[in-house]
């Protein structure tokens, strides 16, 4: 309890306190913070840049989640059956997830570089010239660039959890269905998919919470630019805090950043409870 109070409740309380006070760099020394109610929240909500960053966060999160999940699922199905070097490949894939975001960000910054980047060189070498592009310095494509990198980072995590989920499905179900003449697609869509639903929801919710607050990867790759094309909510909050030193507004924006993951968390906990009360699918 003391641990929770010290490391969770106090910072959270302090953040809420800051968010309803007029706190800037100068006031920190003099202790002249003035209570200003919801003014900070109003300033944030009135800022078009805030809403722009919310939109970008949603695009980034949804784009990353869906593709991460789809690719992760496909790879999980692939690795679910043993094949030569399968174990080795699986561990290699995990490296992507283990790399610090700053490292993977730097890596992709270089891979996607217009002049010296490996991808563009590859595209040009195989005659796909139209695909070679200033990915990160063109506002129209920089978001695609950072999503691409984030998918690469997220796929192994998705794959690992989904793989565990696949292993919980009793192989006899598939065998029985095969004996009854079900095609591979039927077995996948009628047996695997429904049984994988609880795991999938968990994976997607965890992914949502992780992805919504991604900061370092984007910061390293584009710094939120060009212009403001990749300034997602976390970068917006950082900017208000540490570029403009408007701590009150930063705290308010930071709490707003918590809303989406918090809703996702509440939804997840409720589902978990429902499942425990009335087990679905899994326990066939």
């Amino acid at each position, binding site marked *: 309890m003391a641990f929770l109070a010290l490391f969770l409740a106090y910072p959270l309380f302090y953040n809420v306190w800051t968010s309803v006070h007029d706190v800037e760099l100068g006031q920190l*020394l003099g202790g002249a913070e003035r209570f200003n109610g919801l003014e900070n929240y109003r300033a944030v909500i009135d800022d078009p840049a805030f809403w722009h960053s919310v939109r970008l966060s949603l695009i980034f999160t949804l784009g990353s989640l869906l593709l991460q999940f789809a690719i992760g699922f496909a790879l999980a199905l692939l690795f679910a059956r043993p094949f030569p070097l399968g174990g080795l490949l699986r561990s290699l894939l995990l490296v992507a997830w283990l790399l610090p975001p700053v490292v993977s960000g730097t890596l992709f910054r270089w891979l996607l570089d217009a002049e010296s980047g490996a991808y563009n060189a590859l595209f040009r070498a195989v005659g796909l010239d139209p695909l070679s592009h*200033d990915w990160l310095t063109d506002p129209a494509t920089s978001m695609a660039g950072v999503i691409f990198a984030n998918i690469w980072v997220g796929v192994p995590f998705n794959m690992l959890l989904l793989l565990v989920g696949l292993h919980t499905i009793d192989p006899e179900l598939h065998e029985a269905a095969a004996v009854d003449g079900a095609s591979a697609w039927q077995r996948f869509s009628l047996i695997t998919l429904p049984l994988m639903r609880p795991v999938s929801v968990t994976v997607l919710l965890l992914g949502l919470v992780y992805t919504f607050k991604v900061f370092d990867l984007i910061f390293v790759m584009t710094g939120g630019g*060009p212009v403001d094309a990749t300034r997602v909510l976390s970068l917006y909050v950082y900017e208000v805090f540490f570029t403009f030193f408007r701590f009150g507004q930063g705290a308010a924006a930071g709490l707003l950043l918590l809303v989406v993951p918090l809703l996702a968390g509440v939804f997840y906990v409720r589902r978990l409870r429902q499942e425990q009360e009335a087990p679905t699918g899994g326990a066939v």
Partner: protein
Amino acid sequence: MPYPVDRRAFLRTAGAAAAALGPGAAVTSCGSEEPSTATLTWWDYFTLDNFQPGMNRLIKDIEAGVPDVRIERRTFPFAELDRQIALAAISGNLPDIAIVDNVAMNTLAGRDLLADLTDRAEKWGQADQYYKGPWDGCQVGGKTLGIPNNSNCLALYYNAGMLESAGVEPPTTWDELASAAQRLTSGDRYGLALSAIKTEEGVFQFLPFLWQAGGDLDTFTTYGATALSFLDDLIAKGSLSEQCVGWTQQDVNTRFLNQRAAMQINGPWQIPALKAADFDWNVVALPRDRQAATCLGGENWVLMANSKHLDKGWEVLQYTQRPSVLVPYLVAFGELPARKDLADQGTWASDPALRLFLSQLPLARPRQYGARYAEASQAVAEAEQAVLTGSASPSAAARTAAAKIDKALGKQ
């Protein structure tokens, strides 16, 4: 109470005297002076290896020359220092002395964070020894809040061989710059390279264009559009790479060194790296439009308002301004002095490239726009990026930026 490490440092510096007087004398002097010794904490962002010998020597000099002072130095990465000062303001662990980027005076000054040195500086009476830009950069709201540490500014480097074979003279005006850049562009080589990255670094490189056009941040709608159009044309003609929106000044210098840019806008801190280049290069003043202008860079020494050792701190600052201390420090750093009276000493007295930069210092303007400058600066950076990436016209981008700038500065 001094820490053991300070005692050791003290003994080390006292070593020279001890050698002459004998060990017994050193021990007694140490014992008697220790209680009055003040330990000053000192923060800066000179983290690179090549800065350490010069900095260590400077601190040793101070500890030997200023009575009863020990320096406890901490370094932070460049982008971290302002943030650390802000965080330290919250926790109350501010240093006594800091060397900050001159542009940081905007955020740090006027918030009672920095010690007011006005009276001390007046009594000292050396203000007129400094170039106007650097000294003015330390004056905020009628107060002296710092002493210039070193100064730099931007100029135009060119690849001498490329200009010669293209039959192009070093440009002195915008028109000449545009036509030279176009004639020097070929294959994967651009005529000009500059940094337009979305940070203060990009703004540092953009502001000279705005000033050369005859404007400033308060007239951004008109003159901002002029400056943005000029750069936009360079991109349209292929003389400047659109990639510059992601380049730091370091990246720009790399392009120039790889001979993938015939000209570059950059500062004197690149000279050591350029000396190793296997081609001839030279440097000239930034081309002018309506007027000549360049942007002031460099650092200032500041004392923190809540320091318990303000007098000692001020003594340290004064001491560092002696030519015998300042010149070796600046030479070791490859930086230029902010003081006019040092113009004929040090490497910059003989090195033609450094001399050119020094000759530009009287023109160099500090970015002194007040506490909300960071927001205005970001608006400028975003306008430039929008134009150079083709997502907004110069006039539209200038108008959008002007609204944000006006809100951030003065018109509030």
